[in-house]
């Protein structure tokens, strides 16, 4: 059962990665690691910034 829970969590984590749901976590990690003096964006700011930047740099989707 415990094994199953670990596996399930792994699968969910994988799907989150593929969907890009873990982007904010990664941004925070990068921010801390880079040692910036300014505070990181909040989660809300980050996602706004992310989609708003896509407005000005579109990416194609494949057929």
């Amino acid at each position, binding site marked *: 059962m415990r094994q199953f829970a670990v596996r399930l969590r792994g699968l969910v984590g994988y799907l989150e990665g*593929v969907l890009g749901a873990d982007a904010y976590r990664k941004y925070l*990690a*990068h921010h801390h690691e880079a040692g910036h003096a300014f505070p990181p964006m909040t989660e809300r700011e*980050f996602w706004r910034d992310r*989609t708003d930047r*896509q407005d000005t740099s579109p990416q*194609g989707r*494949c*057929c």
Partner: protein
Amino acid sequence: MDQRPDATQRPDATQMAGGAADILSHEPSLPPPALDDDVREAEERGWTPAKIGLWAVISLLGGLAWIMLALVRGETVNAIWFVFASVCTYFIAYRFYSKVIERYLLKPNDRRATPAEYKADGKDFVRTDRNVLFGHHFAAIAGAGPLVGPVIAAQMGYLPGTIWIVVGVVLAGAVQDYLVMFFSMRRGGRSLGQMAREELGVIGGTAALVATLLIMIIIVAILALVVVNALGESPWGVFSVGMTIPIALFMGVYLRFIRPGKVMEVSLIGFVLLMAAIIGGGFVADTEWGAAFFHLDRVTIAWGIIVYGFIAAVLPVWLLLAPRDYLSTFMKIGVIVMLAVAIVVVRPEITVPAFSEFAGKENGPVFSGALFPFLFVTIACGALSGFHALISSGTTPKLIEKERQTRFIGYGGMLMESFVAIMALVAAISIDRGIYFAMNAPAALTGGTVETAAQWVNSLGLANVSLTPDVLAQTAKDVGESTIVSRSGGAPTLAVGLAHIMQQFIGGPAMMAFWYHFAIMFEALFILTAVDAGTRVARFMLQDSIGNFVPKFKEASWRPGAWLCTAVMVAAWGAVLLMGVTDPLGGINTLFPLFGIANQLLAAIALAVCLAIAAKKGTFKFLWIPAVPLAFAAVVTITASFHKIFLPVPAVGYFANNAAFAKALAEGKTSFGTAKTVAAMEAVVRNTMIQGVLSVVFVVLSIVVILTALVATVKSLRAGGGTDHEDPAKPSRVFAPAGLVPTPAERELMAEWNALPAGKRLQQAGHH
């Protein structure tokens, strides 16, 4: 070349690695960022008996499967052989051929940092776990294309399509994706257009840019045509696909204002709502008002998609495109896993012959043209898709953690898409051949009713086919549609095939209607996302080009410019879409080859750029790796274009058809061929002229690009290499394994890295 006294001065791999050693020397306090070359070599070349046994089994199983498919002529062939033949071939190609490309042509160096490391910004450049990135990249390249082309190509029997999908991907499609991804990664994630400009100069670069823009328009138009054909006169389909818009809007608002960042959560909610929309569609279509309100003809739906395309492309990304992306990624992975499991579990028997009666003809009802070259353009996605070059350059290279991972993600990702194409082919050929032709021939041939369609199919004289009107009516009833006659475009056929397989797996015949509309829904979802995103990209390319003359247009935030350029792009693909919908000759039948030609001309452009880059690297002995698929793609697409332009057979040649109808009009005829009125005849004259001119423009632009690439290549050959435009090498300070499963040596090195105190190493990208 003669200036070099001996071969040792050639800048080969060892020398470059040696020369770069000082720049790339790693920090002594850290473990090495790459496996030692000798250790890796020993691991790769060490053949244990178990390893030899494994590859012997894979080879034998693959060989047996190909014999079953190609040589054994029984009444039926089991679908499982398609799985074995393709998967075993993919394994062998991945292990051996992609290794050759890596070792001799690309020579990745894990001591070099990737853009995700040296340009890391936490937003666009982020080191991503290779397995996550594999899924991400796959979701970005796979769409409706591999689900549609193989279905249409099944007209010629299963074998030509199967061979082309598998051999094509191994030698061409996966090679293109891999090379483009690697070269873009070495250039900080530059796009194909930028690389073309850099390597081929102004003329080649501009031609590549214009060709890309035109190709994008034609691809968006024909994908939209597939949706229109799937939804025409289908209240259930119109309702459930229409519901995806409010669902996406809701998800967008939820993510923006209610719970930002909860992507998984909102995707699950969206998925549940999507299922509800499919089930609800059945009830709505059953009511009198629902059937009346959502029963739309194809022209109305085409206009609907045009209006939708414009609005979707000017709305902010967060409101519609981003949530749609989440939904379609979710559906994509789910559907493909489900389909693979179902095919392996159900193992349908295939009654379609290896080569059908139409394999040797050029006037097939589903698509016109001879097997060579038209089979090779009909199946583009899944075998060789130029569009991938646009994805493989740009987003994915900015996320790669280590150089050696490009083989797994680029080459491996494309093999995966090829497998999707094989599964689509299996699903399409698992249905009765009579039904297949009744569904995929234009209404001008089938007459549009079950009686006329059955009569027409039986008149074709196909072996073992005798179709009754009852079968057609019953199949339509099973899938919850009023009719399935002349539902061309591939998507409905795939949906019937998928429903047929899935109901044996889950739910039984009562679930067929659900599975049918489930399939229509996900194809429509993929395509509408591609339409939206394609329009945006095309608009930006146009804005950028006009911006060279009117600088104001370069400002992405300048609304009037953005709206105007969006309108121009939507008008362009909308016109082609309407032309296809109203075409008396059947639309898909004449336009689909243009889609494939466009897509593969883009592939030829991408491969030509890769050839020029590889030549500049000085690796002349292995230039055949991009040259062979380039030559094939160039020959196929240029021949296909010439057939379309010059062939005197009206069924194939656009201008021949144009002349035939123009002559009939001049002679005062009021009906000619499948066009029953003067207006229809005039439409044919107009359409064939537009299609013909488009073919000419495409092929001319592509020839210009290929020629400039060849000139650049020859120049490099003469000079013994050329200036490369790679970003300067920077030392890497991270390590990650190259493939799906780490090798023992990689595990050891990973353990060394993991033993470092947390503060000393860079944050690990993935947690697996």
